[in-house]
């Protein structure tokens, strides 16, 4: 019994290490590359010969600054607004789905699912034409609206699943304890729903932040171009120089907010706050 447990542990450890290496090696490689000097790029070594910040300098204060910083600003703004709108709408929608019984409930969920599995690439071209006609092309709303179509379905699904687990009896208990309807919602339900809303917001933010197809197709200038699209427009110092170093540095910088978010809200994301409210 004990032997098999140790064995099981070893197997799991090996699998975990394998998955970690598989997932993190590219990131480590990009990180190393971002510190290489241009001449060092083709050295074939994993680590840079000289650690240098020249790539970061270039995108933050150098030639590529205009391209990178404006796109960073676009990305942050567009992703945050899209996330906010998606979470607010999805919260209302999921609340209704979890709490109320109304005709068409199933239809909403299936439609949301259908939208989320719809291939993005097939609507990009019509959207491109439509946006140009109505003047949304290369604007923030022009990206926020399609991002909502990506973030809303998944937000509705995760939140509806989360809200279903909330013991709504608590709301009634609070009312009997002397709370108004609003107090009951705010003091008993919101603290329980918050982790779910947080998690959903983070997932939605990731989706909007990582999008490339809409970003490259529906923008043309720095007015709205997000980082993933902007990376494709980086050029080297001369036309014979590949911009690999600068792209790596930019990739690392856009990864940082995601890592920070996950670290900060780790507890909310994995939270088992609803445990203990009811039996079990």
């Amino acid at each position, binding site marked *: 019994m004990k032997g098999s447990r140790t064995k099981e542990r070893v197997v799991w450890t090996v699998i975990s290490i394998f998955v970690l290496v598989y997932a993190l090696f590219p990131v480590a490689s990009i990180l190393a590359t971002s510190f290489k000097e241009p001449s060092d790029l083709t050295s074939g070594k994993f680590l840079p010969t000289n650690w240098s910040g020249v790539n970061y300098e270039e995108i933050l204060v150098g030639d590529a600054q205009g391209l990178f910083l404006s796109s960073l600003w676009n990305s942050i703004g567009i992703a945050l607004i899209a996330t906010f709108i998606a979470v607010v709408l999805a919260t209302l929608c999921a609340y209704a789905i979890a709490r109320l019984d109304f005709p068409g409930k199933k239809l909403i969920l299936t439609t949301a699912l259908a939208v989320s599995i719809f291939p993005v690439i097939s609507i990009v071209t019509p959207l491109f034409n439509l946006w140009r006609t109505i003047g949304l092309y290369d604007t923030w709303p022009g990206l926020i609206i399609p991002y909502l179509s990506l973030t809303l379905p998944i937000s509705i699904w995760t939140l509806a699943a989360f809200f279903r687990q909330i*013991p709504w*009896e*608590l709301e*009634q*208990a*609070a*009312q*009997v*304890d*002397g*709370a*108004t309807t609003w*107090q009951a919602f705010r*003091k*008993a339900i919101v*603290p*329980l729903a918050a982790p779910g809303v947080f998690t959903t917001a983070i997932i939605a933010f990731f989706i909007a932040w990582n999008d490339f197809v809409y970003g490259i197709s529906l923008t043309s200038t720095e007015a709205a171009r997000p980082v993933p699209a902007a990376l494709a427009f980086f050029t080297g110092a001369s036309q014979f120089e590949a911009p690999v170093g600068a792209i790596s540095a930019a990739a690392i910088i856009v990864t940082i907010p995601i890592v920070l978010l996950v670290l900060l809200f780790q507890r909310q994301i994995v939270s*088992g*706050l*609803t*445990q*203990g*409210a*009811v*039996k079990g």
Partner: protein
Amino acid sequence: MASITLKNLVKQYGDGYPAVNNVSIDIADGEFIILVGPSGCGKSTLLRMIVGLEDITSGDLLINGERVNEKAPRDRNLAMVFQNYALYPHLTVFENIAFPLRLGKGKHTEDEIKRLVTDAARTLELTDHLERKPGNLSGGQRQRVAMGRAIVRHADAFLFDEPLSNLDAKLRGQMRSEISQMQRRLGVTSVYVTHDQTEAMTLGDRVAVLKKGVLQQIASPRELYEQPVNLFVAGFIGSPSMNFLPATLEGGVLKTAIGNIGISVDKATAAEGKRVVLVGVRPEYFEDASMVDDAKRPHGSTFTAELTHTEWLGNEQYGYINFDPDPEVRSLLDSLARDMDADELRPQIVVTLDAASRIRGGRPAELWLDTRRLHLFDPETGENLTRDAEAGAALTEEANTARAEEIANARGREGANA
């Protein structure tokens, strides 16, 4: 402290099905009322109507003589303990108990809240757990936190919705006696919903038996047990349940599948004119004929029957007799079983025998039946033909007096301690 009056309460859902149908109950100040019945009988709905979580379709609900039909739950000043406790998982035990106090903004100072919560915690032996979260507590402790939230705010009445059904059997017994003692000590009006007979019989001053939303009988546990108003109450109260035996009445003698039973004149008169009656006999009305006192023997009748098997339990034993009823009676028994949540009522008689009895299954045995205590039921209406309303009322009156005394004693002790 409050009295609660239910006047012709009706709860009808959208499809027109009445979950609660014309229920009237007067609950006196300090009384412990149990609502009991099989699942789907409307007992929980009735409780939720009292507390205000369900709308009242028609009828009046009065608390202390004041109509509260339209009042929101928070304005009724009632406390409720939910089946799965409904504790706030993000708050500590202290904050859970303090929750109702904090809602009344400015009503209590911080010191007052602290004092009230620690007092309640001491009563419930929760002092050591005040800083823990509900998730880390055992079932019994969670249950006590839920009670703490109720007692801390001096509500007019306590409502319990099957509060013990999530606990294991041993803890249930313990919590049952704690609830009972607490109720007596605080002398607070309580309404308690359960499907468990033991809880109903041991806790209640009066027990209301409901079936399909209709109140069947409300009386003290003893009256329900000894003078049930109809077949349903008779069969629902008591474990093992009452035996129902079809019989024809001929000149003061009941002809049944297990033999002839002579009954007293007044019982025979009550059932006069009925071709077939159902004889209701509790298992303990039977006895091994050889073990009956000579003084008692003339009050009953002796017959011979063959037991299929016996079960020895230490303090007593159960014997089983099979019989073959008419198809007509059989369908009646089946529908009765459905009403009581059982699959089918087997045409079987359970008898309780003295633990020392040598009667064993498979052989004919002499049994004695106490005919004074059996009841005759009308098989069509289910009505108890031999119910002695006066004797029943006397039993309930007795229970009321006992309750008043207990509360007075408890308050006297409280006064002496303070």
